[in-house]
Structure formats: C-alpha cells, structure tokens
C-alpha cells in the first residue's frame, strides 16, 4: 500500500547570485496514516523548505529534485489542475505564525469555508456554515465566534483557527510547520494536546516541524533530526529524545531539558558555533566543526545515514560502535 507521504531522495536548492544554495539534501522520509512524524532542527536547517515542497509551495527560485509522493502520486510532476485538487483536500498545512497566515481583513468563517467551497462545490451555503461551526467547536472555539476577524483573537485561538482550517476538507495528511512557536508555554501545551487528540480521533497522518525537540517528543511517534539540509538522526521519539545517538541530536535534546529529568541538569547545555555556510560546507561531516567528539576521520567524508538497532544515525562513531 502507498504511504500517506513519502519523500524520496528529496533535494532542494535555491538559485542565488553566488550559485545554487542547497537547503535540503537527499532526505528520505515516510508518514503513514495515524502516525505523527516530527522534524527537528535549528532554524536554517531546511525543515521549512521541506514542508513547503509537500504541496509544491516552495519559492519560485527553488530547484527541487527527488520525489514527493502524497498517497502514491508525485506532487512535483503532476499537472496544475491535479495539484490544485490535491492541495488542502488530501494534504493541508498549519502554517507558522497564524497572525500572518490568516487574511487580516476576512472573517475567520469565510477563510475556513473557502477551501470547502472550492473542493466541494456541491455543498449548500447552510451545509458549509454548519461544517465551519463544527470545525470551530472541534478545536475549542465556540461556533458563535465564527464572524470575528483574526486580530480579535488571541494567539492561541488564531492557531486553533489555523488547525480548524487545515481540517476543513478532511485531509488524510496534515503538515504543521512550527505550530506552537510564538505561543506561550501554557497555550503551547493546549495546542499540542489538541493536535494529538485530533490525530488520534481522525486517524490522519501528520508531519510536525519544530525547532523544539521537547514539543516533538510529546506528540510524535517518530522524529527525524535535520542538520544542514540532511537527516542526521531518525528513530522513535523516545529513542531520539532519551538516548540520542548523533552528537547533534544530543546537543539538541539537551537544549530543551524536560522538567523533572535529573540528567538534564548535569549535562552541558548549548552548542557552540553556527551551522555551516551552505555555500562552503566543510569537507567531511557537516557537523564536524561544532562537534566535541570529532576525530580526523570526520573530516574525510560525509557519513551516510546508517541503520542501527531500529533507528538511523549519520555519525561514523555510531556506525563503528
């Protein structure tokens, strides 16, 4: 059976004046129904670019290679008509920064109804209105508030509206790009609860992008850690968060200590240095310049993503062990 989402050797680079700028380099990833997969990484590691390719929404100056299969069909090569039919009906996106991702001068009901009317033109106005009301109730906003404008809602409520909108056409796959960034911690927890509840109830597949590994560990079944455009670690959420194998995954896990985890207090937190300049990547492992465990061999070749005990990691030390 086809996977809900399958990324196959996906590479994206941006055309710039200084030559192509790689953002995503050879990512393979699979999301199945009822499964929540997370992608973690620092800003600039290519995770948002990756999310945008799922519905072929990448900027015009991006060059994409590989395959993005949604329910078995390649999004990157299909015709515009097929693509428009697929967008939102089969896969939808919860964008980051709901304030800017919602049209500021349209009522939220109009914005939620828009994709429904587009993809299910047979529905009567009353049916659409009823569906919008249900959707709002489903994300915890009273249907009576459907006539407000985005600026009249709080940040958390706006994010709820975004989620309701993503559910509007009952898609099988939802991509959530930093869904909780810019929300305070309490609201963040509520939104995460909402998301995992919905995934469980509706049986959809979900791809969540976040820089915050602790957010992902709460809701995800599997997590992939990206660094400099590549997946460097991939495994169950528990494995990646509790016992990360790749030194970068370790550093990322330590950056977000969980309350009540005594180990986190003693581990050195933080990571020195910046991600590599994509125009001039280091010769071997891209993480080598920042790695505290680097050896000479790290500078020779980029280590491949290897299977080790039910998970994958791209570090020569892990492979050797």
């Amino acid at each position, binding site marked *: 059976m086809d996977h809900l989402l399958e990324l196959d050797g996906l590479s994206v680079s941006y055309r710039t004046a200084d030559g192509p700028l790689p953002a995503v380099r050879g990512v393979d990833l699979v999301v199945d129904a009822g499964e929540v997969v997370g992608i973690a990484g620092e800003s600039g590691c290519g995770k948002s670019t990756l999310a945008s390719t799922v519905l072929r929404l990448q900027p015009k100056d991006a060059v994409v290679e590989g395959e993005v299969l949604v329910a078995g069909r390649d999004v990157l090569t299909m015709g515009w008509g097929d693509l428009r039919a697929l967008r*939102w009906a089969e896969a939808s*996106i919860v964008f980051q920064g709901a304030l800017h991702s919602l049209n500021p001068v349209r009522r939220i009901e109009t914005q939620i109804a828009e994709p429904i009317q*587009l993809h299910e033109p047979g529905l009567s106005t009353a049916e659409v209105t009823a569906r919008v009301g249900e959707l709002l*109730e489903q994300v915890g906003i*009273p249907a009576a508030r459907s006539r407000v404008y985005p600026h*009249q*809602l709080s940040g958390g*409520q706006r994010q709820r509206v975004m989620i309701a909108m993503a559910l509007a056409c009952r898609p099988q796959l939802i991509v959530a790009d930093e869904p909780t960034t810019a929300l305070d911690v*309490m*609201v963040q927890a509520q939104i995460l609860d909402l998301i995992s509840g919905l995934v469980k109830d509706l049986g959809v597949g979900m791809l969540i992008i976040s820089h915050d590994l602790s957010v992902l560990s709460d809701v995800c079944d599997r997590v992939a850690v990206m660094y400099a455009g590549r997946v460097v670690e991939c495994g169950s959420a528990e494995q990646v968060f509790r016992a990360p194998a790749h030194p970068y995954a370790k550093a990322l896990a330590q950056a977000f200590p969980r309350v009540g985890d005594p180990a986190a207090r003693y581990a050195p937190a933080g990571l020195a240095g910046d991600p590599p300049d994509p125009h001039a990547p280091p010769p071997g492992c891209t993480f080598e310049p920042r790695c505290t465990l680097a050896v000479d061999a790290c500078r020779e070749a980029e280590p491949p993503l290897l299977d080790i005990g039910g998970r994958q990691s791209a570090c020569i030390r892990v492979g050797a062990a």
Partner: protein
Amino acid sequence: MTTLAAAAGTEAAPEPAEASGPRRSFGRYLAGKVLGALGSLLFVLVVNFFLFRVLPGDPARSLTRGRVVSKEQMDAFREQYGLDQPLAQQFLTYLKNTAQGDLGVSIRYNVPVSELIVDRMWPTIALVGVSTLLATVIGVYLGMVSAWRRGGGFDRFSTGITLTLYSMPEWWLGLLLIAGLSVGFGPLPGIFPTGGLNSIDADPSSLSGMLDSAWHLTLPVITLTLAYLAEYSLIMRSSLLDELGENYLTTARAKGLRDVEVRRRHAVPNALLPTTTLAALNIGFVVSGAITIETIFSIPGLGLLSYEALSIPDYDVLQGTFLLASGAVIVANLVANLIYGVLDPRVRT
C-alpha cells in the same frame, strides 16, 4: 474534545469584548476623523484670514497695491472692510461672513465671489470628476498588473511610463498634446479644439451644444487622466508588492486556489486598502491639475478663475477659491478615511 473546549476557555482571557466594543471603537475612529477634518478646516480659515490681513503689513495698502489712493480713500477703505476694528473682532466677522457664504466681492468682475464660484463650478467638476474616475480605474489596473508581473516586460514598460508621467508637469504634457493633436504637427492635421468649453456658434443648453462641450473637454480629460493615473498606479503597485510578500497568500495557494483567484480574492482587495489612504492623502494634486489644465485649455472653471485672479491680484477671489479647494480636499479626505474605516475591520473593530 470537550476538555479541549474547556482548555480553550482559559486562554481566552485577553479576548476583546464583542458586542459593544467594535461599535464603540469605530465611533471613536469616526469622531477622531471628523474632529481632524474640522481642525484642518479651521486651520485653513485662520491661514486664509491672517495671511491676507497680517503678513504683508498694512492690509489696506496691500489690498490696494499698485493703485494710487488718497488718505481719505484709505480710511474709507479701512472702514468698509472693518479694518479699523481689533483683529479678533475682524476674525469673528470673517468667520460669520464665511459661514453665511459671503466670500467678498471680485474686483475684476464686481460680483460676489460666491456667485462667481457657483457659476464656474460645473466645468471643473466635470473635468476633475471624469479624469479622476478614469485615472483611478486605469491607474489601479496598471499598478496591479505591474506588481503581479514584477520585473517582467509589462512592469518595466508600465513603471517606466508612469514614472515619466509622474515626473512631468501635467500642463506641459497638455501643451504638447495641444501642439500635436489640436494644432497639428507637420503634415498631420489637428483633431481636437485648442481650448475653451464651447464652439462660438454652439448653444450650450442644446444637446449638440453639450456634445460640443464634451468634445472640447476630451483633450483636457485625457491630459488630466494621464497625469493622475501615474500617481495611482505607482501607489497601487507598491501596496500590492507589500501585500504579495504576506504569508496569507501562501495559505490561499495551499488551499488550492488558482493564482488568479489568489489575486482577485485576497491580494488585490487588501492592497486597495492602503491605496485608498494614500490616494486620499495625495488628493491635493487633483486640485493642482485642475488649475493648470484649465489654464492652458482656457476652460472657464474654478482653476482658470484662480489663475486669472493671480495677475490682478483679485484677493477675494483667490481667498474664496483657496477656501473652496481646501474644503473640498478636506471633505474628500474625510470621506476616503470613512470608507477605509468601513472596509478595514482592523480599524472598525
């Protein structure tokens, strides 16, 4: 799901009041704009009054500049204009007269300025109204297409043309058009009348007379439209470019909308909002265009009236037309602001 709904309640603390809030804040917006317009109007009245009475020293002397007058004549003149009274008293009298529509008497025509204005109003309204309408539609359209195809051939061409038009005194463009299309250039005969509002033998009240007037107004309208549309087009282009960078358009595309629909439903309506405000702020240039274009085409409207009053100088006429032009611009601005308030919920609620 019920627990989630309950949880949602806890974060709803800073929720804006819904029932009475919007109306109240829109009321405040409205009141603010009306007060602002009244302030501007008062400001114009003060400028109008003091500029002519205080700035050039003895007003009686400057009002009679260029003419030889005896001391008795001067005194009589002062008394006639109430210039022997204290300034505050004079200002109040001026306000009262203005409110009653008494704008003084034209030296040149020896009729009340208000009558002159009513007489000369219609050609200006026709000229400015039609040109503004055409310019808005064409300008906004050009700006829209330019922004949508930013950097493309159409954009370069359209922006080049509009920037050149913007850099051009509109009356110079008018002179060129008169030379080319009215007088004719080289072997090419002229098509349009060179100026005026009617042919000598036409009866302005008959249908053929009206068509004749419309024919006379064609070239002035073309000139003014070209002059105005540059401004609107540039404003619309930059507003839409601002809008095109916004994320909600990506959302709209992700929903499966065609690019045309994204533009028509989301980008353009939103870009029109700032365009309204900016166009309102720049409404003063409409007045400038009316003055110069009526001058070069000899259209007997308010613009030509001001121009003729300049050389005499016919102070009461200048003051009257200034007051009228400012008042019109202030009112137009207020209307634009109110429309904006109605269209943009961020202001209304």
